[in-house]
């Protein structure tokens, strides 16, 4: 038995570290994983299984672990952590999962008693009655039992992304990976060598299979090679980094753990996600041992043979001094050898192969050391309470011998780790000699080396490396001589599961450990017709655990192929879905989170808004003042009523900087503008503006704004805030792809000007004071004209336009001067009570006037005709974008929805936006039959000027209904009687606007 002080001689670090597991304190050494440290302390029981809550221990020594998953309360309660990967640090707190109240006495293990019922598809066949029980009783209960670990705690990641553009990526720094790297030392190829572990060498350090390389001891050779690689000008090495994803175009994603063996530092990235573009990817990522299914093959104490060996050599811990070894292949020779070298003696050696198949070296060793050998035999099962106590060996048909032991090492063969290769969409094939799926042909620039290619013998490694990499320029043939202490040629006997000696309802062989899928489940699934491997996976949940069946999925295929009497290659494999191992959400998100989630765009006036108690609204990425709170107690409603009243009484100013501005220039600018807008700009006078509509090719309103014509070759268009990018893209697309013959260029100038909208009866006099040299009189500065003016050492543009119905001006000023000018305007308007207003007041004022807002009064299904904007369509124009769509058969029909105004009959009643116009006065609730809806309220505000609510609506055949009555629904399914009117409530004759 191993104990802390009874360690193997291979341990590297002596620094003692303490940690707790389920509240109890243990010691391990620096470099230990949770698993190796617990094994050092003789802890075998680590967790409980998903469905049956069966006791589970440590099965493997790496990322393939299905059982030993733990929770780390000292790291924000990080769940489902592989104990076989995660390294310990001083003070680490570890807890077992999926058990209550304790790991030893878990109430959930009662499920095991009922396990004969919980067969594959159990839930699909049960819990269907009586009526209502599923929803109220069964389903909530089932859901409660979900999951393995507990949810993690709130955590703010510092993880970052790192980009690489290289020529060659080598995945895995084992023997083949290192040889590949060595071959590329000091060449012109830009190389990235990626190793999952925290050291280079892989198998060279995890086993004693290779004694010398080129006459040097392995460690010496490793040291030299590492130095050579490190000093090479062209090779970068990433350790603790796992390649998780292999996308198209040789794009790889790798995850680097920056805090291996340490508590995560608060202010440094704990994870780095490397995003790699490469010309060639060399996969040298090895293989993973697989298990064999037998009765109780899940008991703590059953461990994969190569993992056992790795614990000895890598961690210096001997999990057990006298295990029973069970194998069907050549690979277990080195385990026998390692144990004997340490003076340990396996209790028994059970090999399914014929004697002549077994390596002579192995037989000699067993013979010399008097180790009982059971040839052509198999393990029928094992027994014990919470751990292995006894194994049953079946030599001949049902001739069972029982052997007392506390550990059973199993090897069912080796699986080339083809996960990444198949992610790259490479093709695999079944090798019926070695019984493996191995790469057949690459789809991308992918090269596989070593055991991932299915080459398990080290003898030919250098030959393979040379053969596959010699095409790379500047590479020379490597001469590598290995002194190997391993099997010569891999051989294996097909054995996926062993038969139970006695048929019992409760006896189980597992095909998938984590998801508690038994071999019986697989057989039942096939019986029910789930003979396609994807169906089987989905019906039984086989290989859908966090380990994705790394040690077991090929076995399941083997078992199924036997039942179906098919070749395993005909059964096929399921898709290996990325990532290779689970990847933290934080790492995927990287730095574009929290305050960097999405940029906040702010206008130059923003600080002023903040100082003046603006409440902001998100419009796209922009922060826009929604309304200004005059005092803390003021509600939004009060503020908006106050602001809008004041605009109509004196004047108001709105920060309109966020509106998109696009400058269009070129010899054919006029032709172009006539094509992208509905309006005809041919007769528009220079230096004047026009309210303009833009349609999609489907004839639906896409955007609106004011287009200013400087001359036929130069226009400036404004867009909605949210539409700015789309409008520019739309214009670019047509200019480049549809009308490349037109000489026209466009650019966004949104950020180059701040825009102030000043409107109200006093706006003229205020601006006259601010710009004393400009004549703002109606004659000199009529509605919809604009001009450029010198201002300080810059130039500004002023346009007379209005979105409120009052006299109004838009001032365009370079951002640098904007805030000062804004303050200056306030300085000069002291006598006139200028009010700053936000978007809500803007919406209210324009609604009173009957102006639409694209995106509020339209929704992508509305034509200009629906909006009564026929006057904006250039009648003489032969074509513009969307024109043809306006005469389609269903578009010209009069029964479309049209924009109208809505007034409540009872002036004190308030209409809510988004409510619907209906014909009937009462609604019978609950509503069982759909109620006929004529349309919906697009805008609704309480007008302080008129002292009642004004609303706009899109109503079926609305124009015909003007003057009539209807009802508007409320959220409580009451109705409000309303009158349908023209959508203009204030100054319908534009007297104020044009004054």
């Amino acid at each position: 038995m191993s104990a802390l002080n009874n360690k193997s001689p291979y341990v590297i670090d002596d620094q003692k570290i303490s940690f707790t597991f389920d509240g109890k304190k243990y010691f391990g050494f620096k470099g230990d994983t949770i698993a190796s440290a617990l094994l050092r302390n003789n802890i075998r029981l680590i967790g409980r299984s998903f469905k049956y809550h069966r006791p589970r221990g440590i099965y493997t020594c790496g990322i393939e672990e299905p059982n030993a998953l733990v929770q780390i309360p000292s790291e924000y309660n990080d769940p489902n952590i592989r104990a076989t990967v995660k390294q310990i640090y001083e003070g680490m707190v570890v807890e077992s999962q999926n058990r209550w109240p304790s790991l030893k006495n878990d109430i959930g293990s009662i499920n095991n008693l009922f396990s004969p019922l919980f067969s594959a598809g159990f839930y699909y066949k049960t819990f269907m009655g009586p009526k209502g029980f599923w929803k109220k009783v069964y389903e909530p209960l089932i859901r409660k039992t979900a999951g393995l670990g507990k949810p993690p705690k709130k955590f703010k990641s510092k993880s970052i992304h790192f980009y690489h553009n290289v020529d060659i990526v080598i995945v895995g720094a084992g023997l083949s990976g290192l040889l590949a790297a060595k071959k590329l030392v000091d060449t012109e190829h830009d190389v990235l060598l990626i190793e999952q572990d925290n050291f280079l060498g892989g198998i060279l350090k995890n086993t004693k299979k290779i004694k010398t390389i080129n006459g040097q001891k392995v460690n010496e050779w490793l040291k030299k090679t590492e130095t050579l690689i490190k000093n090479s000008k062209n090779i970068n090495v990433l350790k603790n980094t796992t390649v998780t994803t292999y996308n198209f175009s040789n794009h790889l994603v790798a995850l680097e753990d920056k805090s291996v063996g340490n508590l995560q530092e608060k202010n440094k990235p704990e994870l780095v996600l490397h995003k790699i573009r490469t010309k060639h990817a060399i996969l040298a990522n090895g293989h993973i041992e697989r298990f064999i299914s037998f009765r109780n093959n899940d008991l703590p104490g059953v461990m994969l043979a190569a993992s056992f060996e790795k614990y000895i050599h890598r961690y210096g811990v001997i999990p057990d001094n006298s295990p029973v070894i069970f194998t069907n292949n050549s690979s277990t020779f080195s385990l026998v050898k390692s144990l004997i070298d340490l003076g340990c003696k396996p209790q028994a050696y059970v090999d399914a192969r014929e004697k002549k198949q077994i390596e002579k070296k192995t037989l000699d060793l067993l013979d010399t050391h008097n180790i009982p050998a059971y040839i052509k035999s198999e393990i029928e099962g094992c027994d014990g309470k919470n751990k292995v106590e006894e194994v049953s060996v079946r030599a001949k048909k049902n001739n069972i011998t029982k052997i007392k032991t506390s550990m059973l090492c199993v090897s069912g063969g080796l699986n080339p780790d083809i996960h990444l290769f198949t992610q790259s969409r490479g093709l695999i094939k079944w090798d019926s000699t070695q019984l493996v799926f191995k790469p057949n042909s690459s789809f991308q620039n992918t090269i596989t080396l070593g055991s991932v290619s299915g080459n398990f013998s080290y003898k030919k490694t250098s030959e393979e490396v040379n053969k596959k990499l010699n095409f790379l320029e500047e590479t020379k043939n490597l001469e590598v001589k290995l002194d190997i202490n391993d099997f010569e040629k891999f051989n294996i006997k097909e054995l996926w599961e062993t038969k139970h000696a006695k048929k019992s309802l409760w006896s189980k062989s597992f095909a998938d450990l984590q998801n508690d899928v038994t071999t019986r489940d697989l057989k039942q699934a096939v019986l029910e017709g789930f003979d396609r491997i994807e169906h089987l996976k989905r019906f039984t949940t086989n290989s859908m655990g966090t380990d994705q069946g790394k040690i077991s999925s090929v076995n399941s295929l083997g078992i199924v192929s036997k039942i179906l009497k098919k070749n395993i290659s005909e059964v096929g494999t399921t898709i290996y879905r990325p990532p290779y191992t689970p990847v933290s959400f934080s790492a995927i998100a990287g730095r574009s989170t929290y305050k960097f989630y999405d940029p906040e765009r702010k206008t130059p006036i923003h600080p002023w808004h903040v100082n003046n108690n603006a409440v902001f609204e998100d419009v796209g990425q922009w922060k826009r003042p929604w309304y200004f709170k005059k005092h803390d107690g003021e509600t939004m409603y009060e503020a908006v009523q106050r602001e809008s009243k004041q605009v109509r009484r004196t004047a108001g100013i709105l920060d309109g900087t966020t509106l998109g501005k696009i400058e269009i220039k070129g010899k054919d600018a006029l032709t172009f503008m006539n094509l992208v807008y509905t309006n005809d700009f041919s007769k528009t006078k220079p230096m004047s503006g026009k309210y303009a509509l833009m349609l999609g090719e489907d004839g639906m309103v896409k955007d609106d704004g004011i287009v200013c014509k400087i001359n036929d070759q130069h226009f400036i268009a404004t867009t909605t805030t949210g539409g700015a990018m789309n409008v520019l893209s739309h214009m670019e697309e047509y200019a480049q792809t549809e009308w490349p013959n037109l000489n026209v260029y466009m650019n966004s100038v949104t950020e180059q000007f701040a825009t102030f909208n000043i409107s109200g009866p006093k706006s003229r006099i205020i601006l006259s004071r601010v710009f004393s040299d400009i004549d703002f009189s109606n004659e000199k500065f009529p509605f919809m004209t604009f001009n450029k003016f010198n201002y300080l050492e810059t130039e500004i543009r002023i346009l007379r336009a209005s979105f409120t119905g009052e006299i109004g001006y838009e001032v365009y000023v370079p951002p640098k001067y904007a805030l000062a000018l804004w303050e200056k305007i306030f300085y000069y308007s002291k006598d006139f009570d200028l009010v700053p207003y936000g978007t809500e007041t803007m919406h209210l004022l324009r609604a009173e006037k009957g102006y639409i807002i694209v995106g509020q009064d339209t929704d992508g299904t509305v034509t200009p005709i629906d909006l009564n904007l026929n006057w904006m369509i250039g009648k003489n124009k032969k074509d513009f974008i969307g024109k043809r769509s306006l005469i389609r058969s269903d578009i010209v029909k009069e029964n479309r929805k049209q924009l109208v105004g809505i007034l409540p009959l009872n002036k004190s009643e308030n209409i809510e936006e988004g409510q619907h116009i209906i014909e009937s006065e009462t609604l019978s609730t609950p509503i069982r039959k759909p109620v006929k809806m004529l349309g919906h309220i697009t805008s609704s505000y309480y007008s302080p000027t008129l002292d009642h609510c004004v609303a706009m609506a899109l109503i079926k055949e609305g124009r015909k209904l003007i003057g009539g009555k209807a009802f508007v629904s409320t959220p409580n399914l009451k109705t409000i009687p309303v009158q349908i009117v023209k959508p203009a409530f204030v100054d319908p004759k534009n007297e104020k606007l044009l004054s």
Partner: protein
Amino acid sequence: MLLINCPYCGERDQSEFSNGGEAHVARPKNPELVSDREWSEYVFIRANPKGIFYERWVHTHGCKKWFNAVRNTSTDEILKIYKLGEEPPTLKDFKNTPKTPSGEPKVGSGNFAVKKL
């Protein structure tokens, strides 16, 4: 993750680009002369082949230039990129690529068996 070789800027990640659907769909010269059906074909119907696809891309987060590409939509391989106005390659240039290769394997669903060109 596509790697797109913008003819003006060079190779960039797909996230810098936007796709514009089928290429070489000409807008009717005289829209008012075409029927409702022909017009709807122009507005709404685009080729959607599994295999060789002539398509448009724009380097949205870059030079904002539109260009054309030929891509195999069953493998996402970009076979050719050419500027607007340049002569499109003919289908014959890609004769080894079947128009609708049946990529899926006979059994299972893994290991999408697509033959490289």
